[in-house]
């Protein structure tokens, strides 16, 4: 079953749909024309470039090239996590990279090598979209974990100091905030799994069905990706927070002010 192509004139028609929300936003007094325009333009250019690159990647299907693409995705995700979490990249860039790289590589390798078992484990058709999807969700989780953890520490500075004064080690003193941050990071994934299929049809499954796959196959892939997202987000958040503890505090266990990127 072939997926129907969308010809250029009909793509133009599609963009026309944006006029409706743009008009509504103007009516309620929200002047977001510039932001909307830039976002739509960026999305279109970025996806066009990805389309060109993926076409080339799939045609060549070279293990090093596929690996390089995943590396680029990891680096972009790394910097994006730190910027959105309000932490200075120069301090945490390596720790965050190690956390997301290890968890993404582990869960993607587990899924591709042990579960899907394609002829070549480096097959771009499998590893690139799967690693990308896992990474995208992992990124959200890590932003929440880091942001929650360091905000909570700054907000509860006196409570944290009290724990230290009562004999807690750094790890013992940060543990309540650590647990809360990890919980906040993985809660959306847990809630998403619990309501999957009831509230919305998941994106990957929809994509596969539109691409001509059997619904059963699409369901199996969706379950696989959700389990990998849950696993990698949990692992990445815990490793990331743990590694950051060695960077963010001074030798007296006090949070270093200079690591926080103040707006």
């Amino acid at each position: 079953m072939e997926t129907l192509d969308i010809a250029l004139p009909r793509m133009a028609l599609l963009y026309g749909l944006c006029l409706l929300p743009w008009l509504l936003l103007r009516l309620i007094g929200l002047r977001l024309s510039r932001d909307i325009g830039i976002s739509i333009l960026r999305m279109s250019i970025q996806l066009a470039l990805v389309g060109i690159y993926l076409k080339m990647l799939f045609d060549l299907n070279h293990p090093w090239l596929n690996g390089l693409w995943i590396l680029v995705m990891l680096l972009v995700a790394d910097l994006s996590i730190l910027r959105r979490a309000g932490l200075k990249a120069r301090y945490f860039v390596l720790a965050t990279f190690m956390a997301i790289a290890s968890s993404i590589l582990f869960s993607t390798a587990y899924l591709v090598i042990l579960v899907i078992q394609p002829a070549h484990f480096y097959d771009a058709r499998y590893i690139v979209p799967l690693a990308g999807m896992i990474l995208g969700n992992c990124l959200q989780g890590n932003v929440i974990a880091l942001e929650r953890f360091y905000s909570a520490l700054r907000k509860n500075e006196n409570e944290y100091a009290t724990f230290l004064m009562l004999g807690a080690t750094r790890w013992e003193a940060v543990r309540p905030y650590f647990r809360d941050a990890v919980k906040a990071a993985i809660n959306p994934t847990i809630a998403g799994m619990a309501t999957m299929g009831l509230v919305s049809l998941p994106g990957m499954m929809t994509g596969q069905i539109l691409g001509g796959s059997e619904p059963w196959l699409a369901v199996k892939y969706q379950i696989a990706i959700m389990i990998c997202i849950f696993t990698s987000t949990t692992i990445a958040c815990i490793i990331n927070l743990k590694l950051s503890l060695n960077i963010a505090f001074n030798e007296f266990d006090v949070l270093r002010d200079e690591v926080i990127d103040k707006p």
Partner: protein
Amino acid sequence: MSPIIRFDCVSVIVHEKTILSDISFALFPGEKAVLCGKSGSGKSSVLRTLLGLHPIKSGTVYFQEQPLTPSSVQTVRSCTAYIGQEPMLGAESVREALLLPFQFKTHRDHRPTEAQLIEVLQRLRLPADILRQESSRISGGEKQRIALARGLLLGKKTVSAGRGDQRIGRGKQTSRVRCFFRSAADGPFGGSRP
């Protein structure tokens, strides 16, 4: 006799602002001292610097004649009860707050019995049923006494108290203060506005 606490030309800068400039003093075991000054003059900062919560720009802080270093700060913290202006109890109920330090590895083997908890509360003129109350529902004064009780249970030698428990500084010896000072082998230490 050597001082238990000594500040030697200590300056502290926090957020690019000098909060302590060239402070020197010495306190001996058994001495009780009060820091007086206007609001924002740095009374609490002296106490927090002693506990390693502010980085020292210049000078040296000594505790039991040992310079304050990352390795010695644990000794200072384990010997000192710091009772802030509005002490943080760090737990839902008063009982959990009193037992909080005994969850930490260093105190895990010295968890007090129910009888010891009640005895400490009685010494500070607190009713035993306060144990069941939520930490957020008790008054500021009661919070300070719970923080003092925690210091007693931990056998702290030195007390650093912020404003609020002014009776420490003013010499009006209430039972709780007498009780704590009797228990503390060395000098307590308070900060109070004039």
